[in-house]
């Protein structure tokens, strides 16, 4: 193994290991602050710059809170239940973190230093990068189950079982909505997918892409156990689910893993639908693409936080019903729509396309605006009707309410 390879591997991975945990700390602060504002509170506002206690405190809106939390977590007692499976209890948080960290490598973020290393080290240049992404994200399920089982706590076990059922179910709409993008680009390569959306050719600006993005985002919420799909850790029902028996740094690791998974899945959504690092000014200043990528990730995470502050939780059977009876048929229908639209746009030109170029862009360049408008209206109409119908079908029958008043 050459020294160069080792250097390149380090250059590719170490910044990821530094940047994202830092962002995680910032995100916890952001989440607490945003939730507090949603709930008429102030949120963390005491901890700021250390050692400035005397002679005027710089609290900086409580930005020092994540650091204080981290230190607190480090020094807390590590409690393992007596009957717990000690090995698995220890391994679970680690296993939760590893896949989350691993999939960060598949995000095509153009860090300035990434151009100087050889291609074989860039994970997002793999031909099957998107498949790898889903494969490794799926491992998160195992960590959750491991934690739930190893704790020997009935609430944890319930949480673990819920987590498996939920993640397995929501992976399917997640993958199926990603398939649309793969169809439109003709590649599984993350970098190629991002490049195909350069400028304003984001896939969210196509009707089927928009629908797929919405499905993807909902499924991503469920994959990362965010509200309203936070059943595995439903506080009001099963205490904290698989977290129940975790304390101290193991808990912090779980927490870290969960947020990194949020970054990863948001990053994938950005890659697939939101144009990767594309944005105004990227052509002139290439390093702006990194900023744009992170800004888009944070926009998605802000939506997640917003949802968490506003929505109640679903019930477990409704959750499964939603995945299988609503999202799955809708995403399959969406694939059909995307396929027929591509065929329609191609009009027999499909064989003559350049295989090395993104399919959609080639088709769109010569497309009639009227046809495009028709596709928009048609696709959204079909999807809307289908969603409505599915909603009517899966909705529980309830009797109408009537409230009377007695004088």
């Amino acid at each position, binding site marked *: *193994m050459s020294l160069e*390879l080792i250097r390149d591997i380090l250059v590719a991975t170490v910044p990821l290991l530094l940047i994202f945990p830092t962002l995680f700390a910032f995100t916890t602060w952001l989440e607490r602050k945003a939730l507090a504002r949603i709930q008429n509170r102030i949120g963390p506002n005491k901890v700021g710059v250390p050692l400035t206690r005397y002679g005027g405190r710089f609290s900086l809106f409580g930005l020092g809170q994540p650091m204080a939390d981290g230190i607190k977590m480090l020094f807390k007692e590590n409690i393992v239940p007596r009957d717990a*499976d000690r090995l*698995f209890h220890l391994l679970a948080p680690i296993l939760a973190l590893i896949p989350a960290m691993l999939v960060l490598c598949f995000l095509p973020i153009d860090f300035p230093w990434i151009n100087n290393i050889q291609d074989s080290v860039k994970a997002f240049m*793999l*031909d*099957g990068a998107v*498949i*790898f992404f*889903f*494969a*490794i994200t*799926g*491992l998160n*399920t*195992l960590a959750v*189950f*491991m934690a739930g*089982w190893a704790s020997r706590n009935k609430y944890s076990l319930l949480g673990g*079982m819920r987590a*498996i059922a939920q993640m*397995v179910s929501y*992976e399917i709409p997640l993958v199926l909505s990603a398939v649309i993008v793969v169809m439109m680009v003709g590649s*599984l390569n993350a970098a190629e997918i991002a490049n195909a959306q350069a400028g304003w050719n984001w896939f969210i600006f196509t009707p089927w892409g928009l629908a797929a993005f919405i499905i993807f985002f909902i499924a991503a919420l469920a994959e990362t156990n965010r509200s309203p799909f936070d059943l595995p850790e439903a506080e009001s029902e099963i205490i904290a689910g698989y977290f129940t028996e975790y304390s101290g740094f193991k808990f912090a690791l779980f927490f870290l893993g969960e947020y990194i998974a949020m970054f990863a899945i948001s990053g994938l959504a950005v890659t697939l639908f939101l144009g990767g690092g594309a944005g105004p000014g990227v052509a002139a200043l290439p390093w702006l693409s990194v900023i744009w990528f992170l800004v888009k990730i944070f926009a998605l995470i802000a939506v997640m936080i917003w949802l968490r502050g506003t929505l109640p939780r679903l019930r477990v059977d409704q959750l499964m019903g939603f995945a299988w009876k609503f999202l799955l048929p809708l995403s399959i229908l969406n694939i059909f729509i995307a396929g027929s639209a591509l065929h329609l746009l191609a009009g027999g030109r499909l064989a003559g396309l350049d295989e090395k170029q993104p399919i959609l862009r080639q088709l769109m360049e010569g497309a009639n605006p009227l046809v495009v408008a028709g596709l928009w209206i048609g696709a959204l109409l079909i999807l809307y009707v289908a969603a409505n119908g599915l909603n009517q079908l899966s909705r529980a029958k309830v009797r109408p309410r009537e409230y009377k008043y007695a004088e």
Partner: protein
Amino acid sequence: MSEQIAFWILSAIAVLGALVAVRKRNLIHGVFALMIFFAALSGLFLLLLAEFIAAVQILVYIGAVGILLLFAIMLTERVAGDDGRRMTSRGWFWGLVVAAAVFVVLLLPAIQQWPTPEVTQAPDPSVEELGHKLMNPYVMTLEVLALLLTAALIGAVTAAQGMRKPKEEGSPE
């Protein structure tokens, strides 16, 4: 050289994982050891530049088969078996014979070509090549397989629905 080192490490992990999976009486531990074995196998595929197969190995064997096993174990009465029982069972002799026979059969092609193995052109395992192969010569096979799996899925759903008793509505009387 580096491939060699990686190969040996991954092989060691795979063999160890397989051994632990067989040995452990605790079913959950066994399943997780099996998953380690699968993961190492996936690494070996990567080493052979078969990245698609490596991804599918993780996706299918760990993500699906492993989870399925866990589900099955969760449904059984005793999740954790006792670890203390001895490793060998009564049929150990015949088991050994069968294992040896399988090993020999697997080695047979290599033995036949000994000592000058025939070097053939390895197929290109890239995703693109696989896609083309699946869409052109093997499209019929793929469709039939897909149909079969769909039928199996629908069958499973029907079977599961048939098991459920009609729900009792209203007040318990």
